[in-house]
């Protein structure tokens, strides 16, 4: 059977659609099927994600129309406009350079802009301590609200010890 569309290649995709009891059949070759959008062989979600992102950044863009000759990231040369077009950040430095504009975007995407997960051991020593401190404070609140005073006292002592360590490292 030849492809219904190009009438050249053999049909390899057979589509039966039933809409309101109306049955239609189409027989297409791989390339025509892909063109017709009947089948996608991609495993990744690949829709125009940038368009969404642009929408999400809309307000921050609108607020900054005067930035025509906007400064670029000194490390990779990305401007915020470039980011708006591609949806991709250029380098780690961009997160600092565009920090105040990325922060609301991260909050819109993730509901928060504050990382609470893994911290790299290398160069993350102090950070890891502060992260642990945040975790412990959360634990303390939880224990207090559940009236688990024994555990709360233990966590409080741990917090004190940790705070001591952090200030000693600062000094």
């Amino acid at each position: 059977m030849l492809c219904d569309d190009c009438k050249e290649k053999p049909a390899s995709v057979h589509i039966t659609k039933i809409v309101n009891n109306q049955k239609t059949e189409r027989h297409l070759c791989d390339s025509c099927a892909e063109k017709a959008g009947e089948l996608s062989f991609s495993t990744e979600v690949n829709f125009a994600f940038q368009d969404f992102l642009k929408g999400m950044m809309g307000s921050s863009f609108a607020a900054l129309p005067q930035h025509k000759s906007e400064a670029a990231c000194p490390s990779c040369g990305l401007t915020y406009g470039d980011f708006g077009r591609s949806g991709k950040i250029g380098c780690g430095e961009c997160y600092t350079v565009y920090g105040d504009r990325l922060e609301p975007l991260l909050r819109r995407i993730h509901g928060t802009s504050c990382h609470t997960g893994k911290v790299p051991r290398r160069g993350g020593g102090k950070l890891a301590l502060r992260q642990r401190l945040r975790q412990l404070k959360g634990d303390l609140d939880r224990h207090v609200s559940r009236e688990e005073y024994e555990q709360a006292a233990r966590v409080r002592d741990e917090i004190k010890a940790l705070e001591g360590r952090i200030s000693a490292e600062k000094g």
Partner: protein
Amino acid sequence: MTIENLLDKPLSPWMKGGGPDEDIVLSSRVRLARNLEDVPFPGRADGQTLAAVAGEIRKSVGDLGAADKHVYMFVEMDKLPQLERNVLVEKHIISPHHADDDGHRALVVRDDAAVSIMVNEEDHLRIQCLVPGLNLQEAFALANRVDDLLEAKHTFAFHESAGYLTACPTNAGTGMRASVMLHLPALVLTSQINRIVAAATQLGLAVRGLYGEGTEAIGNIFQISNQITLGHSEQDIIDNLQTIARQVVQQERVAREALTKKSADALADRVWRAYGVLCYARSISGQEAMSLLSEVRLGIDLELITGVEAAVFNELLVTTRPNFLQKIAGREEISPGERDRLRAQLIREKLKEGKPDA
């Protein structure tokens, strides 16, 4: 061990089955996105920089092997023909994007393909671990260990509040995308799948069909993954996904039971017909193969068909994909018609290995 072995053999550990809830959960996967500090991300880096990144990572391949007694290979993608890259995509070892063009992309892959690291994809590193069954904990432990080993030599771009820095802000924070691949034929048959998809979406997870968009998944296979990567710890994300996946598994079990009770005869007829077509078809499209294989697998899981290994289904999911078939054919070009014939032949041969107790 060469990349050829990995390409020719259909079996990765997840395809052999095993693992918790293996009758419904095909595999669990964890992916970590990482970038080297002070180096532009792949999208903004020049060729020389990317080559240097690949060179740096190459130096760590030995460390990985020494740590877990497996062999790790380093493959430069531009040395691999397009067809072989596509096979790696079909085997879920790399992303379609990574197979696309040559930007000094490379792949580090463990001999059993349970660990793979894409180098210079959207981020400098995408560490990916794939294990059979519902076992996100193990997949995460594996990915975390690989991350630690790499981190011992390389400094990753990290920010106190934004976490691990990634090219796309949707991955920032943990850089972690965890997912489970589920076979949900009964939820589809009983038209409950949309309800499940809606519920999972409301709980902050993404659901999509395998090899396809939209809710109509080919072969009734769905992937559920976390959407949010920032603000929750890796463990919380894993626990959340694991809990919801377990709920979906439970729902699928209930639907299977209901089907068995209410329409046992129709169901038995359906799965045996599917088995019959697969056993005797001389030409079969990829999509038809997937949906019939799904029914046969359901029949095996419900013990309507006995004597045939369930893992056959997992294997055929990969070996009946177009690029893998072409690789087996060993020729540059095969026509779609020839491919459909080859697919039918491969399925017939595989099903012959196990004789069902009809």
